[in-house]
């Protein structure tokens, strides 16, 4: 994989491309962009058939190991990598350790292992085991393993341990990566930890940069452990960290921000030269029954808020599309009233329709950002987006709605289990047929 900067402005924001993917040489992923968050290898709520109705070209998928590692036996038997195994062979995948936005219980640590919170509970894994799994996943891009799930106000001792452990694990990753035949077409991304302490953060970055020859990018961790409190704290200090780190990371490396950050923070990150986001924000909105309805056209005002809570009774008889003028399948064929009914009756189609719209619109947010960067008008666009987001927060505050947005923890699996309404004891006994 190759990362090329096509246009960089003095302010730091830049437009680039990811190209040179072995399996699809013609694919170009333009940055800044957001990946599509997956669960169990599938784009959350969307089958490959439905995904092809939303995007007609190969997309960058964000594949957390934690929510997909249960497919290991099949993945191993098939031997062709996670994209193919999960029915999405034409797409580009970026594998990370966790879904950064998901809450994980505080865990104990062992010398050379970090906990991976999977659907089957906690699994302690080493860097060696992590690299074994990468060889099975065969990702186009993957993040090095790190002990990075710490909040900004984490205790000093814990941060030191996290830095130490992450450095050691990173070295193992690099050694294995260089030696691996199976990972020759995969790009390695280093993970900066200890983000709450500027000196330790620099140490972390400097350690990673010692292996710069093997690196394609740098990702930022050590911002949050996924809890509401840590997310809140991180939101407040993020701008400063993104700016300092943006300046410290060499220009030619892809810069990745993991986590469920709101559109205003995303604009700030883009301004400081960050290129890639994990897409958790769009998924979280869909899971909550919310639709992103930002007006992406500078110079025009919109009457609606930039986030609609379609659970609200007010949409009961609103037969207009989620966002008028939106080109997505949901907006072309369905109404707010129908989605509200599906949410009210807890039908799974609500998540499908909202995912289709939110993923499309979130993608448009980045597309417009790239156009503004290329046209040297990004500042205007950034202000336009932030203004809408501020108006939404003000509306929430004025109406006593307590942050149902960014700071709230993300809960993938439990939320979805509730939707499917399946508990193991409900499984009926049935005839068993031998495989044909």
């Amino acid at each position, binding site marked *: 994989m190759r990362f090329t900067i096509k246009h960089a402005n003095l302010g730091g924001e830049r437009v680039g491309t990811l190209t040179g993917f072995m399996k699809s040489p013609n694919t170009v992923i333009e940055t800044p962009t957001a990946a599509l968050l997956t*669960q*169990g*290898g*599938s784009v*959350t*709520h*969307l*089958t*490959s*058939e*439905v995904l092809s*109705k939303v995007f007609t070209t190969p997309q960058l998928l964000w594949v957390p190991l934690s929510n*997909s590692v*249960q*497919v290991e*036996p*099949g993945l*191993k*038997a*098939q031997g062709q990598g996670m994209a193919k*195994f*999960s*029915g999405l062979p034409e797409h580009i995948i970026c594998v990370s350790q966790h879904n950064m936005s998901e809450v994980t219980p505080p865990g104990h640590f062992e010398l050379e292992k970090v906990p991976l919170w999977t*659907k089957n509970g906690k699994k302690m894994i080493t860097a060696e085991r992590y690299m074994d799994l990468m060889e099975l996943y065969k990702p186009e891009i993957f993040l090095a393993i790190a002990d990075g799930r710490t909040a900004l106000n984490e205790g000093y001792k814990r941060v030191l341990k996290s830095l130490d452990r992450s450095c050691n694990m990173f070295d193992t990753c690099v050694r294995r990566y260089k030696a691996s035949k199976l990972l020759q077409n995969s790009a390695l991304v280093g993970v900066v930890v200890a983000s709450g302490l500027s000196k330790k953060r620099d140490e972390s970055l400097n350690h990673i940069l010692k292996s710069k020859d093997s690196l394609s990018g740098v990702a930022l961790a050590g911002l949050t452990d996924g809890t509401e409190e840590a997310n809140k704290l991180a939101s407040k200090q993020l701008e400063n960290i993104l700016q300092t780190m943006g300046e410290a990371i060499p220009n030619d490396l892809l810069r990745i921000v993991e986590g469920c950050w709101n559109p205003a923070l995303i604009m700030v990150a883009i301004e400081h030269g960050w290129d890639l986001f994990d897409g958790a924000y769009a998924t979280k909105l869909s899971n909550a029954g919310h639709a992103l309805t930002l007006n992406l056209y500078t110079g025009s005002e919109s009457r609606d808020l930039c986030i609609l809570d379609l659970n609200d009774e007010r949409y*009961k*008889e609103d*037969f207009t599309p989620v966002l008028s003028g939106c080109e997505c*399948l949901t907006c072309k*064929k*369905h*109404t707010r*009233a*129908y989605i509200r*009914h*599906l949410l*009210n*009756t807890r*039908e*799974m*189609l609500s*998540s*499908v*329709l909202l995912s289709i719209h939110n993923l499309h619109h979130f993608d448009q947010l980045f597309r417009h950002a790239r156009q503004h960067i290329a046209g040297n008008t990004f500042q205007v666009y950034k202000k336009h987006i932030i203004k809408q987001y501020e108006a939404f927060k003000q509306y929430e505050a004025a109406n006593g709605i307590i942050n149902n947005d960014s700071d709230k923890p993300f809960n993938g*699996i439990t939320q*979805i*289990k509730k*939707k*499917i*309404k*399946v508990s*193991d004891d*409900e*499984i*009926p006994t*049935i*005839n*068993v*047929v031998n*495989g*044909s």
Partner: protein
Amino acid sequence: MASKSALSFHVKAECKVSKARVGLMKLPHYEVKTPVFMPVGTQGTMKGLLPDQLESLDCEIILGNTYHLGNRPGTDVLTKAGGLHKFMGWNRALLTDSGGFQMVSLLKLAEITEEGVKFRSPYDNSEIMLTPEKSIEIQNCIGADIIMQLDDVVQTTFQDYDRIKEATERTSRWLDRCLKAHKRPTEQNIFPIVQGLLNKELRTQSAKDHMSKDVNGFAIGGLSGGESKDDFWPMVSLSTGILDKNKPRYLMGVGVAIDLVICVALGVDMFDCVFPTRTARFGCALVSKGQLNLKQKQYEADLNPIDKDCECSTCKNYTRAYLHGIVTVETVACHLLSVHNIAYQMGLMKSMRSHIENGTFPEFVKNFVSEYYPDGNYPSWVVNSLSKVGINVVKN
């Protein structure tokens, strides 16, 4: 009075041996090929599938439940939306039930009188009376192509003759009230429901009563409620023997593959059942020999599709091993299995239609039965029902 213009039915081909037939049922929203299986989309949605996906699966008519839709989103919303078709974005045919069955089966407190079904709302505990007129009023709002009369429902295994007789006769009286209350006879068709449970005389009487009415099709009700299969099939056979050959016959609540095959042979044209989509939620996939429970560990490294001969998007793109890893955890797994299971049902109906048209239906049935019961132990009801329509499946 029902108008013929809301439904026309042409029998295109008949099996020379059994009572099976292929027909074309022209409805206001779609021309439906019969025999047809109608997947159940209770609340105005088919378990996570887009209307576009249902169309690619060749679904031509789907079911909605009046009881659920009348509560949520409610008739006000549906009227303002211009009916359920527009509300859910489904352009093909729809059928709604009367709501009576749900009340009796869901609610313990239902009380049935000559006026209607009285029950307490599970939403706000208020007392509600569902009369034949009310049921039709709601169904007129929903706007389905085919709507059901309100019938007096008795548990199929119920024994008390007087109560069964009362229910059967009341169903006929309620049919008259439904037809009288019907406001959109040029756009919607009321189907009467043949009752009488397992009693031959009462069921005959019920079918004959309904035959005298100006209706465009018939439903066979009161079956598939826990009775034995040996008790079930003679009632289907009896009903199709009496009902007008030139009108479609709908057997309510039947959808398991072997039942579909036998009842098509007995002359049934339409079926509905929640089974294919419900079983999908539990991680079960339908195959010609029954079903696969993909949760089982034996599939964790099985790289076959669910069914290598299936043309559905799930079987083209996914292995059993992958599905094993995500069933009952990810919504995507439900969607994938629903797609396959509906494709299975649609495929079964399609092959029955083509075998009837090609004159090879009896051979199809024999093959199907021998594959379904590979040990050759055919249940008596299978043997007897098929022999009744001239298909001999006993091995020589």
